[in-house]
């Protein structure tokens, strides 16, 4: 079932510390006042311009196998190829903070305010990552609700469903209140963890975007795909949310493509599954 979920901007607004950490600035290091001032301005612009929206749809494993296969350009062996057949649930997703932020970044560079443009880009990357994180948590809570006895509903923080074929939470409205999930690994129920995987990473070739787009149709929330597999708006993330037991998500970074990976974020994600601590949001 396809579902469009909106989140308020505050739900995906990164902290100044997160943005600076994404720029390699060590925690606790004093920030020069002009940089701090530009960063505050960038955070304000993000709040003003971002319009976070997401779309999800569940997909059976057999159908996802076809989506994953894409155009046959994946690495011969990859973590996701081993993980998804063992999943309890697979959910295709796409998130975006919209085009106005990217347009403002371009405008700032063009008018010589590249310090602010650069920081707004960093804020937007962190914010988009946070949005995907919020969606992951939302899906985990939804899964938990389905597995809970009647009258035992829990709600995700700040998700607003705007379309969908079923609505187990009743009337449309902001799903406020406490959240039952924390960190990157949205925990759907004891032992089940949601993690996301995207084309272009970990052996899933970026041309896989084409099949993913055919199955999900994120054009409904304004995300389009170029011939080069580039998503527009630029600050968008797509992929699959995999619900599985923690041990299913674990893998070693010894694949051939790991040697050229400059982020290695899989390590922190897997570590989080093990220690249950919330991860830091990364700039994308």
């Amino acid at each position: 079932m396809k579902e469009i979920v909106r989140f308020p901007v505050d739900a995906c607004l990164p902290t100044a510390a997160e943005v600076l950490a994404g720029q390699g600035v060590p925690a606790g290091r004093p920030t020069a006042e002009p940089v701090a001032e530009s960063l505050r301005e960038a955070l304000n612009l993000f709040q003003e311009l971002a319009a976070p929206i997401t779309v999800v749809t569940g997909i059976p494993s057999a159908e996802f196998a076809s989506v994953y296969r894409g155009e046959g350009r994946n690495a011969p062996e990859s973590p996701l190829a081993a993980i998804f057949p063992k999943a309890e649930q697979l959910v295709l997703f796409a998130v975006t903070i919209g085009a106005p932020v990217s347009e403002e970044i371009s405008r700032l560079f063009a008018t010589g305010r590249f310090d602010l443009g650069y920081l707004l880009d960093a804020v937007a990357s962190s914010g988009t990552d946070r949005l995907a994180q919020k969606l992951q948590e939302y899906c985990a809570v939804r899964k938990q609700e389905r597995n809970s006895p009647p009258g035992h509903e829990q709600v995700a923080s700040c998700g607003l469903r705007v379309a969908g074929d079923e609505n187990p939470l009743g009337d449309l409205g902001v799903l406020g209140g406490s959240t039952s999930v924390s960190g990157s690994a949205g925990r759907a129920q004891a032992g089940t963890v949601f993690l996301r995987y995207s084309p272009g990473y970990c052996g899933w070739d970026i041309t896989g975007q084409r099949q993913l787009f055919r199955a999900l149709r994120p054009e409904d929330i304004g995300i389009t795909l170029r011939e080069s597999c580039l998503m527009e708006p630029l600050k968008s993330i797509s992929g699959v949310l995999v619900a599985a037991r923690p041990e299913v998500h674990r893998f070693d970074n010894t694949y051939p493509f790991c040697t050229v990976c400059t982020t290695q974020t899989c390590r922190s994600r897997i570590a989080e599954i093990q220690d249950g601590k919330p991860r830091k949001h990364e700039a994308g």
Partner: protein
Amino acid sequence: MELLNQIATSLQEGDDARVGELTRKAVAEKIPARQILDEGLVAGMNVVGSLFRDHEIFLPDVLLAARAMYAGLDVLKPMLVSENVPTAGKIVIGTVQGDLHDIGKNLVGIMLRGAGFEVIDLGNDVAPEKFVETATRENAQVIGMSALLTTTMTGMQRVVELLDAKGQRGRIKTIIGGAPVTAEYAREIGADAFGFDAASAVERVKELAAQ
């Protein structure tokens, strides 16, 4: 010279208003534009580049310093032109066809200008032919290309091939960079250099321009 040292220091602090004011003062004191540029602005940016390489400062600090440098350059530009002061070299940069990511390319352009290069920025989604035509017409020494997608990296190879076909390879050097790009890929397609990040790209371009 104390005034030029003050320009360099204010630039390192990212104080664009002060750099503009001091540069105007230096001009009023009849200090040659070339000397203000080399011993004030570029000297300050060199310190910034060095601190950045040593992880003493980070990109946001570098960009503020660059903005201050531009404030000084705006004052000096008419004099640099009238005095025929040569630049460190001319480079054409752009993000390859099919790709709209341009933050990395923009950073390289800003830092190259800070190092005294004349930069022609073609923007993003640039066709291979446009890189070659512009570099040939503008008599540029280097073409710099950026890509963030494996699907668009092939455009870089096309530029090298076009330069080869037009007999310009060797005269016009190429440097490539971007998240999926590696030194190995640069060698594979015959590019002259690979920039791991903006700071290293500037160093490689200096080397290429000196050849």
